[in-house]
């Protein structure tokens, strides 16, 4: 018999033999396969993400209406090297009066602090001559216009109102556009798809307890101190399958701050009207305010790729000292940028893949609460982060 014939007969023998299906074999195999996608669970997860996005949207709206908004460069140009001559005797001859047509100059022309004189009640809210009324934001101007519209004596001509309102609309539209772009461009929309896909692999228990990871994080702030950037390195330690602690040390920069520097004592003197007759001098304004950040946090993994957390946030102003600290002009008067800024943060984080995560952090400053005053500028912001895993599972 030829080898080929022998081979053919063997193959036929095997081909003709049919092995009966064993359901137990399939059950065993099925149990080893990744779990089938649970539609209801996915909808709940997607719903949670959608709810988080809606909350974020409301957060932005709330944030934009915040009392903490500072006068932006568009609204007022404060000269960094300005000095204020504080005189208690200039109650009636201050050139800045909202009830006079000169108030227009606060909007259409830059406010020159060099030329400014005011009463000693410079930062008191109700003073008709206080400086802060000249530095009100467009929003409050709009409100003021709405209230004072019938009164021609305020000096806001119809033309200037239109100018202000159209400028305001531009700002609002621009802001809305930014939010839309952030939402559409952010990795969140993509994350929903990726998370949806990755959530299917639930059997793969990569999240063993007691594991540590080191991450590099970069972020952009959108907040009460305008735009800023952040870079940090963090360590995460799982306490259990779901619960973890995380600590980060980072560097923050806030840009385009309309502020000047003065000492804490000068600030107190202005605040308490105790510097009668003496000028409060502003030194050079910083181009940005830099912070060193330490942020411990406790977190919980709601789903495999979605975690939330809350924690403390301690930041040290790297440029500020007691003698030379940044002061920000707000619609509620001058506020000090904290040298040590204590705050709390909440965070939602979504895994884009095994190495990369996208997160949203909301920070609220606590300095006013802790000091029992309203002297500190509340550095409240939303931060969008991207986190890259450097080490660990």
């Amino acid at each position, binding site marked *: 018999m030829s080898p080929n014939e*022998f081979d053919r*007969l*063997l193959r036929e023998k095997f081909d003709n033999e049919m092995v009966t299906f064993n359901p137990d*074999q*399939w059950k065993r195999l099925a149990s080893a*396969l990744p779990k089938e996608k649970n539609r209801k669970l996915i909808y709940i997860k997607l719903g949670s993400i959608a709810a988080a996005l809606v909350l974020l949207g409301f957060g932005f709206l709330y944030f934009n209406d915040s009392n903490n908004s500072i006068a932006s460069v568009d609204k007022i140009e404060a000269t960094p090297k300005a000095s204020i001559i504080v005189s208690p005797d200039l109650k009636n001859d201050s050139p800045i009066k909202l009830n006079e047509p000169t108030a227009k100059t606060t909007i259409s022309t830059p406010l020159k602090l060099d030329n400014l004189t005011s009463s000693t009640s410079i930062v008191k809210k109700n003073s008709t001559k206080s400086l802060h009324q000249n530095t009100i934001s467009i929003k409050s101007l709009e409100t003021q216009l709405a209230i004072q519209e019938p009164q021609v004596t305020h000096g806001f001509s119809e033309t200037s109102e239109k100018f202000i309102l159209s400028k305001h609309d531009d700002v609002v539209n621009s802001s809305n556009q930014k939010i839309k772009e952030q939402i559409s461009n952010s990795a969140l929309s993509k994350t929903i798809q990726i998370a949806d896909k990755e959530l299917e692999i639930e059997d793969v228990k990569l999240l063993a307890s007691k594991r540590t990871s080191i991450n590099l994080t970069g972020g952009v702030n959108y907040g009460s101190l305008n735009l800023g950037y952040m870079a940090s390195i963090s360590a995460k330690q799982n306490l259990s399958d779901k619960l973890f602690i995380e600590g980060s040390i980072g560097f923050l920069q806030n840009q385009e701050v309309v502020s000047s520097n003065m000492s804490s004592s000068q600030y107190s003197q202005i605040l308490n009207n105790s510097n009668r007759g003496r000028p409060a001098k502003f030194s050079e304004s910083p181009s940005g305010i830099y912070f060193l950040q330490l942020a411990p946090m406790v977190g919980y993994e709601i789903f495999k790729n979605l975690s939330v957390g809350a924690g403390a946030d301690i930041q040290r102003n790297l440029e500020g000292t007691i003698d030379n600290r940044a002061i920000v002009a707000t619609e509620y008067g001058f506020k000090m940028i904290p040298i040590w800024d204590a705050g709390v943060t909440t965070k939602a984080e979504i895994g884009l893949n095994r190495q990369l995560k996208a997160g949203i952090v909301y920070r609220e400053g606590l300095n006013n609460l802790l000091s029992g005053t309203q002297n500190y500028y509340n550095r409240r912001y939303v931060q969008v982060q991207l986190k890259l895993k450097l080490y660990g599972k």
Partner: protein
Amino acid sequence: MLSYSEQDIILGCKENKRVFQEALFKQYHSLFLKICARYAIDNEDTEQLLHDGFLKIFTHIEEYKFAGSFEGWMKRIVVNNCLDYVKSKDTRNALNTKYALPVEEVNTSFSASNVLKDIAFKDLLKLIQTLPPTTRMVFNLAVFEGYAHKEIASLLKISEGTSSWHLHEARKTLQKLILKSSKEVNYESK
């Protein structure tokens, strides 16, 4: 039971849907079980090889891009899994204690077709399972999987001549074993 097209099954498996995975398993389990049986030491290992092979198919099915035969793609996964098994040190040790002892010279001018028809599938499988590991791998790859000696040599890191020798040895040994088995059956029946 609903019947699905091959494309439906593949797409369903890519989406990790059980119904399509089960359909694929039912359709190919017999074919792959026989492949696994030719390489395994016993039934337990055969089932384990089948289990592992299908698991690899399902977890790597995303990599199948509809280029070439799907059955061929799956078969390669199953065969490679079996080869890894045979190559493993533990399996080799176990096989070395079981493979066929030298068979005494017998007259092989028998009617193979009749003997092969008579011999039970399980008995034939047992005879194949007694071949030495490398001989068995070469024989399976050449006769059942249709690999050329060049491919086998590359796969098992042996020369083509050695591959050819193993195949010749496998045929010769199997024929002797089949005949011996047949004689024993005939003797017992008398």
